[in-house]
């Protein structure tokens, strides 16, 4: 019996290390629960709605909760990302339409330094509000792993549609009208 103590302890230690590794790996993986919920029509509430994010290039903060009642097209981008450059003019054009419909685009910079983001905003003539997610926690709560990603949040603060890659005008024109038509 005593002979089994040491091998037993070694096995327990190895199993504990493997469990720890498994836990670490599981927490590194991407979360696709939002995608599945939206696909199934069980619209999830936009996460981290009360997290205040600093406004890019200005003092003050902004949070999703402040925009409740509006349709928000949340666009996660970075200045170094080419697809983000490609979709920026489309979003800017959409913002002009959304303004009159109690809706807005909200840009969120991710994995980007503020000076580059500000330069990007100037170069792309972006007029919609842009906030910075320095820690990345806000963006990660949406299951984001890269850029660009776009989420449409309805007037109830629920995620009604999302796109995990570059958007185009067609997607916006197919997605937004029905969401904009819904009442708060």
């Amino acid at each position, binding site marked *: 019996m005593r002979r089994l103590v*040491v091998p037993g*302890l070694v096995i327990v*230690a190895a199993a504990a290390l493997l469990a*720890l590794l498994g*836990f*670490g790996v599981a*927490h590194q993986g991407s979360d696709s629960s939002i995608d599945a919920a939206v696909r199934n029509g069980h619209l999830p509430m936009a996460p981290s709605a009360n997290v205040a994010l600093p406004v890019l290039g200005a003092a003050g903060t902004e949070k999703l909760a402040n925009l409740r009642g509006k349709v928000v097209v949340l666009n996660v981008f*970075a*200045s*170094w*990302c*080419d697809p983000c450059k490609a979709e920026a003019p489309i979003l800017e054009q959409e913002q002009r339409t959304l303004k009159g419909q109690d809706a807005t685009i909200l840009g969120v910079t991710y*994995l*980007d*330094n*503020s*000076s*580059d983001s500000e330069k990007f905003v100037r170069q792309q003539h972006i007029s919609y509000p842009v906030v910075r997610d*320095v*820690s*990345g926690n806000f963006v990660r709560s949406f299951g984001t792993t*890269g850029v660009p990603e776009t989420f449409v949040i309805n007037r109830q603060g629920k995620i009604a549609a999302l796109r995990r890659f570059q958007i185009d005008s067609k997607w916006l024109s197919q997605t937004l009208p029905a969401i904009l038509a819904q009442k708060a």
Partner: protein
Amino acid sequence: MNRRRTAAAVAAIAAIAAAALAPATAMAAADTTPKASLTDIENDVMCVSCHEPLAVAQSPQAIAERNYVRTLIAQGQTKAQIEQALVGQYGPAVLGKPPAHGFNLTVYILPPLILIAGIGTLVLLLPKWRRRSKANAEARATVPEPSIATADAHRLDEELRRYGG
């Protein structure tokens, strides 16, 4: 007339003071001597989008991050200041060594814990193993050599003699 003279004197003193302070001010403003090297920083920070050390990362984000580090080096910032600025822009994940809280604590706690456990196991087991091998050796030494019958002994001697042994 007196007032004008006084004003002129004040202006002259101000000009002299400004001239005396100018080199120091200029030195302070132009202190952009590099105090850190890109190589040194690249090895200690991460490319935040690709989760690799910046030194080996080649993604667009890594290139942007590297350019930002170059800008800070050119401004004469120290390594510590640059790392702090990087955390301000990209969050704590940019640091090669994760901050010691939450799940990250395992990085700091586990290796020494495993080392201590290993040493402890050896300290406990080594004397036991030594005692066991010593006991085995003693047991072997005390085993009597197999006896041989007298007739067989004579025959063996004869055989050995015959072969010149």
